[in-house]
């Protein structure tokens, strides 16, 4: 079992400190056995003092070698305010470098916390902490065995991830498909969009009538703008036809459309008749036929 064992050393009413200087003093340590060469041993000291008491942090153990087999790798402290006093949390992290030939008991040496209160110095001892270290090698030397003597741990066997890979592949493909559709809707594939602009325009205007002439014109303009890659105006029709010669057969209808649209949008009030709508829908259908053929 790898359950950390906590030792509580509660030393209340320390006789060698000023009256009431230390309210609580606790040292948290892990299990005292089962260590081998190179293991780290954390130690946490919690100290609660009166508000006029200050911990002399300069006197705390500093990072570095403690003795020939013990090193202090980390030493940090934190001070927080509690009602009528201070709470200090000191974290120490030791590393053991002892190479025992058999199970051996060792001690992390204690030290004293220095406290100052109204100009007087008192101390709070942190006791030694004993633990056992075990050797890394086998206890008995097997001379008849020609196998590996020191060997690494067995590699963990891999968990089967086929299902997860399939699920990832499926969700990635779905996400890509959705992103592609969204990009299509946003018009990020102009070439793809240009191949069915009049299909969309036809769908829009098919149910519109004379009263919606503005929407009909807007839909046809939008289709031409999409096909042109930028807004298309009346004066640019010739240039447009030279770049899209497949629409050259519709030159007359195109010129009529732009002239009609200009009169409707920018000229004097135009009387719209049913025949205009029919002509517009015919133009759109012709364009759709060309579009389908040019695919």
């Amino acid at each position: 079992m790898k359950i950390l064992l906590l030792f509580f050393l509660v030393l209340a009413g320390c006789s060698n400190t000023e009256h009431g200087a230390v309210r609580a003093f606790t040292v948290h340590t892990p299990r005292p056995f089962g260590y081998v060469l190179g293991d780290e041993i954390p130690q946490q000291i919690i100290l609660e003092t009166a508000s006029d008491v200050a911990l002399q942090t300069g006197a705390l153990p500093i990072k570095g070698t403690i003795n020939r087999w013990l090193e202090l790798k980390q030493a940090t402290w934190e001070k927080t305010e509690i009602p009528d006093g201070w709470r200090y949390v000191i974290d120490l992290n030791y590393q053991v470098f002892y190479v025992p030939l058999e199970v051996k008991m060792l001690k992390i040496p204690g030290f004293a916390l220095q406290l100052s209160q109204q100009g007087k110095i008192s101390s709070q001892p942190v006791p030694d902490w004993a633990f056992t270290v075990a050797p890394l090698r086998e206890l008995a030397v097997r001379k008849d065995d020609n196998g590996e003597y020191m060997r690494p741990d067995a590699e963990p066997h891999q968990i089967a991830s086929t299902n997860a890979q399939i699920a990832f592949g499926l969700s990635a493909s779905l996400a890509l498909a959705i992103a592609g559709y969204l990009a299509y809707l946003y018009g990020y594939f102009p070439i793809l969009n240009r191949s069915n602009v009049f299909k969309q325009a036809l769908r829009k205007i098919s149910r519109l009538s004379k009263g919606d002439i503005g929407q009909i014109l807007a839909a046809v303009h939008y289709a031409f703008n999409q096909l042109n890659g930028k807004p298309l105006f009346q004066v640019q029709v010739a240039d447009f036809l030279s770049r899209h010669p497949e629409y050259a057969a519709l030159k007359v209808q195109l010129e009529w459309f732009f002239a009609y649209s200009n009169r409707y949008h920018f000229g004097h009030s135009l009387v719209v008749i049913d025949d205009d709508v029919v002509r517009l829908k015919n133009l759109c259908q012709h364009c759709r036929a060309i579009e389908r053929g040019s695919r």
Partner: protein
Amino acid sequence: MQLTDWLHKALQFEKHINQVVIGQQDVVRLMLITVFARGHVLLEGNVGVGKTTLLRAVAHGLGGGYQRIEGTIDLMPSDLIYYTYLDKDGKPRVDPGPLLHHGEHLATFFFNEINRARPQVHSLLLRAMAERSIAAFNQDYLFPHLQVFADRNRVEKEETFELPAAAKDRFMMEINIDVPSSDSVLDELMFNPRFHDTDQLISQLPDSGMEYTQLNGFAEKLQQNIQISAKLKQYALSLWRATQKPQDFGVTLSDVVMPQLMLSGASPRGMSYLIRAAKVRAWLHSRDYVLPEDVQAVFAPCMGHRLFLSPLYAYRHEQLLPALLTGLLSAVAAP
């Protein structure tokens, strides 16, 4: 004062100018637009392409008081207002300078090589151009019929002064004039002696039949009679917004971070000039309503000198501005 009568005269006038300055039909059309929109013109081009000839021809055709001054580095504002000299009796005299010489009959003030004059002189022109008046000798002088023509060549930069933004903004159009590309036109210009003597060429121009004193009244009538639809207003507004934030309209230029490009977009005065010019173009095309094509045709000459790029891109403005103007027109749809 019928619009159609004047249209006939205007087109005749244009035809005559095109016979004097050949191969520059677009430039002549823009000049004609500024005459009827009552705007000032800045011509820019290489040396010897016919800038001065064109401006003199237009001025001659319009009639009225005409004055011309050459921009030099030592020209001072007072040189435009008065000059002093000793008369034949040896007495000191102060006579009106080019601006005041014709008084309120001054119709055309031609400032040749304007970028050679100092900014002080440009400043004097600010009021003369915007308000058509100046203050001198403790009184205001009005020039109700004044139209300023200026030119500058783009070959030399030494000993020249860039026009301040405020002065540029008062010009309705900055028109670029290039060497004609047609071989037949170049052939005529080289070998036909008619084009070698500019003075004689201009003196042959027939009277335009347009009285310069009536131009203001007619221009006002023209502006009131040419119609602008709601859709066109929307289009012009979008163009204006696009000059301020081209990135919002999807305009992109190579090697440019678009949000950092513009220092300032078109001014309200610039936009009002644009619409005035578009109305005149519609009239010249025998229409009584403005189309987006009218706005587009005058957009580059009206806006080119009004858009200011941030210092980061200003050194590339000769390359970026034309691309930006084309990009703006390609980005805004109507309807």
